[in-house]
């Protein structure tokens, strides 16, 4: 995990091109992920627990005939667990080097907010912080009235399979 194409701390603009981001709520913070990684957003469904996997792997779900794992981002980032509500969503993302071999995974978030375009001028480098989610932050986007934490979703998922990054995702 040293010097891959994704280098979170070398100035945000180097990581994320300006473009569209999906913003979502996790605990009290607002996060954003590049819309190109997002495949779809579905409501919460029944999850079958998957034994013998890290605790943040909540289980697997049936996504129209394909079984995909879902990750509980709260747990992944060491936040307090919260009960699922009507607002709880699964953001389905595709990560991996190409469409055919993409690893599809669902991420549980408290609620999704909006899709917004963020220009390069808004990007800020990541401040050093002790939050467990720190490793997975690609940068910050400073908007008019708030700050969006830009998540490096590939890094989150690469914990499950380190080869994802080394193959140059």
């Amino acid at each position: 995990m040293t010097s891959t194409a994704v280098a979170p701390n070398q100035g945000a603009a180097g990581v994320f091109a300006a473009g569209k981001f999906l913003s979502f709520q996790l605990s009290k913070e607002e996060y954003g992920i590049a819309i190109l990684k997002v495949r779809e957003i579905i409501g919460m469904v029944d999850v079958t627990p998957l034994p013998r996997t890290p605790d943040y792997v909540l289980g697997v779900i049936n996504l129209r005939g394909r079984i995909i794992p879902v990750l509980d981002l709260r747990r992944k980032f060491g936040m307090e667990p919260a009960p699922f509500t009507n607002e709880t969503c699964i953001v389905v993302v595709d990560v991996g080097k190409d469409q055919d071999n993409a690893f599809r995974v669902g991420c549980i978030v408290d609620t999704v907010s909006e899709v917004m375009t963020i220009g390069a001028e808004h990007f800020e480098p990541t401040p050093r912080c002790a939050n467990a989610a720190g490793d997975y932050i690609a940068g910050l986007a400073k908007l008019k009235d708030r700050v969006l934490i830009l998540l490096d979703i590939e890094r989150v998922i690469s914990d499950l399979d380190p080869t994802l990054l080394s193959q140059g995702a």
Partner: protein
Amino acid sequence: MTAQQRSPMSIPGIQSLGPLVDRVRSEGGQATGDLVREMRTVGESARASSLDDLARLCRVAAETIEGLASSGAFDEHADLVLTHLTNLVEFASKCDAMLTVGGDPSTLVPPSLLVLQDADERRHFAETLAMFLSQAVGSMQELEEEILSLETVDKPEETVAGIRRSMHTLKAEFGVLNMNGPQKLCHQAETTIDACTEHGVPFPVDLMLQVVDQLKTHLEALSRDTKASFGDITALLDRLRAVAEQACGGSAGQELVKLTVGGEFADSLTEFVTEARAHLTDAEGAMVALSSDPEDLESVNLTFRAFHTIKGVGGFLNLTPLVELAHAAETLLDGARSHRLTFGTMEIDLVLAAGDMIQQMINSLEGAPGPSQREWKLLISRLVAAAAGGTVRQHAVEVPSAAPRHEAPPAPSSPPPVAPAAVAPPVQEPPAIPPKPAPKPAPAANQRPPAATPKSAPAPAAPATEGDGKGPRVERTIKVSTTRLDMLVDMVGELVIAQSMVLQDPAIQRLDSQSLARNIGQVGKITRDLQEAAMSLRMVTVKATFQKMARLVRDVAGKSGKKVALVIEGEETELDRNVVEQISDPLVHMIRNAIDHGIEAPDDRRSKGKDAEGSLSLSAYHQGGSIVIEIRDDGRGLDRQKLISKALEKGVLPPDTNPQAMSDAEVYNLIFLPGFSTAEKVTDLSGRGVGMDVVRRNIEALRGKIEIDSRPGEGTTFRMRLPLTLAIIDGMVVRVGSNRFVLPTLSIEQSFRPSADDVHHLVDRGECVHVRGAVLPVYRLKDIFAQGDGLDDLAEGILIVVEVDGMRSCLFVDEILGQQQVVIKSLGMPRERVTGLSGGAIMTDGRVALIVDVGTLIESALSA
């Protein structure tokens, strides 16, 4: 046989073509008779001089013009035809001129074939062309990148193979579009690449880039004008050829036989390949049958027809070397048919070898290396010699004498690897390529075993000029990629789930409507039918695999000096294609073992009062939702004592083992252990102790099981139990706490509710339970899978006895919910395989249930 024979004979009739064309030009359709006749003559003499391009052009032109004249439509197409004729005459005279100076006319680029197109066809052609262009431009780009990357890439071999494949594809596509020039260029490029690869010569990057440039220019021209003509490529072709020849260097005769697909049926190549393989399989089976019954004329006939059909269809595709070989084999078989020859082992071997080589040639059409020119020549000459019987003609012996192992025979100077004429066999009559495409497909089809599944009989396409398909109809097949099939099966699986979700929806169930219930029932029925139909698409019979085994039995028996009669039963049994592909290896090992270790030598057998000829039976049948494949021999059987002592000696069994306590099955299963062999000496057939280990692994990979039955002195039976398909398993759905798991029924022996008295706790060794006299360890799924809400008291739940590798153990679950077939799906985890799970299944309520992999589950429980 090349230049010397050709040079004096310029093609008769060529000179008169020009004036005849002029006459037609001035007089119109009535004057075509003479031209057609002359055209045929020229075509035939061209054929005799191995000017295949010219021969084909003449034949097609003659047929087309004749057709037009008789239907009175000549004048309508006069312009096109006359332009074509002018080109044709020009090409013919060029060929002629080339011959008279002793050159090789096959280097000339022929004009396109005369193809008449009505409006529909023109549109179709334009569409095909447009599609081709859009793809080809992209693939040219890739090709160029690949060639360039050769200079930097680590493993050039793979890239070169990729380039060669791309070239090959392009060649075929140009062929389909009837663009002879580009086709020829691609072909020569392919040949050159092959030559370079084979002789370790560096890839001619610059030259190939020129080829790509040339093709690109042409593609661009085509996209502007569909009739754009291909530039002059003679120089480029010459350079490619020079590189190839240089690469081949002095190793003439080593180069591989090259098949050039051509002719107006080039696009039916895939069909040809499939059918030829089927024919070869039939022929092989028949030959093996013949070896057990030399009087079996029907087998000879069947084989004859197989070769004849291959020859005929191969002829349309201009696969000359293949045709010549098939012809030679056919001649030999004809000898047997007409009772001139008796067919002994040697003849059968020869025919089998011919079949193998044709197979190899067919494989080479798909990119595999073909046989070498020398092997090819040698085999043909042996076939010819055998066909001639005792009275071997002088020239027939010449070639074999040139064949010994040392350096190559005096090869024709400047060996064009493509020119088949250079190595034409010394057969008296020229290879009889039927002038009319109709190698009696009907009798061949009738004679096949009636149950042969929809593999269509050879249906040489009707001549292009009369496409209304008279004559017997053959069932049509198309090739579909397996990924598409899998997708279909997946989607149907979804449909089944969605249908049952609708059915079970409370809102629907509240509606009290008879018609709704009826309609839903109807949808359900159609859905199930659809699922069955979709699954059956993947099913193929085991026939081909079994026939391969027949050949193996014959070879192995011959090598080990034993006599073995093979009985095949149930070869029409259908299995999933993937399964069929993967049982071949295990079968080979088991059959080898059965013959080498099981069946005794003839003398031995006689002294034991058995028939000197051993019997081996190979059968397939359905049993309870799975397929059983059985291999039974009547040999000496497995020797319990010997197995145990060998196992003790090798340390496979702990020294304190009590042999009496081991069941027969446990003892027999020892032979599946890696490195375990009781053979006193390792032969080239078996005895290394690898085989049976492979067998078990392969079968387990297919989620199958293998059982052994054996009686000393009476024989051994191996029984493979295989799932019908890989995508679906029979599962027992169980509940643990609030979650469901699927256990493969195959590994389940029984289930029961234990009474508290049967359960024992062993200090440090967990729990065990008494089941019918045996003490089995108990594993709780609740603990293994951390299902907090599962039952704790064994007496309240159910114990399921499972068997893995001959070891039985119990799994504890809360409840058995039922048994059902489930479609196995990947869990979608990046690192695949979560220990103890083999995948997931989508249940009828749309939720996922996990499928337990009993083997790794118990393994992990043991190591935990």
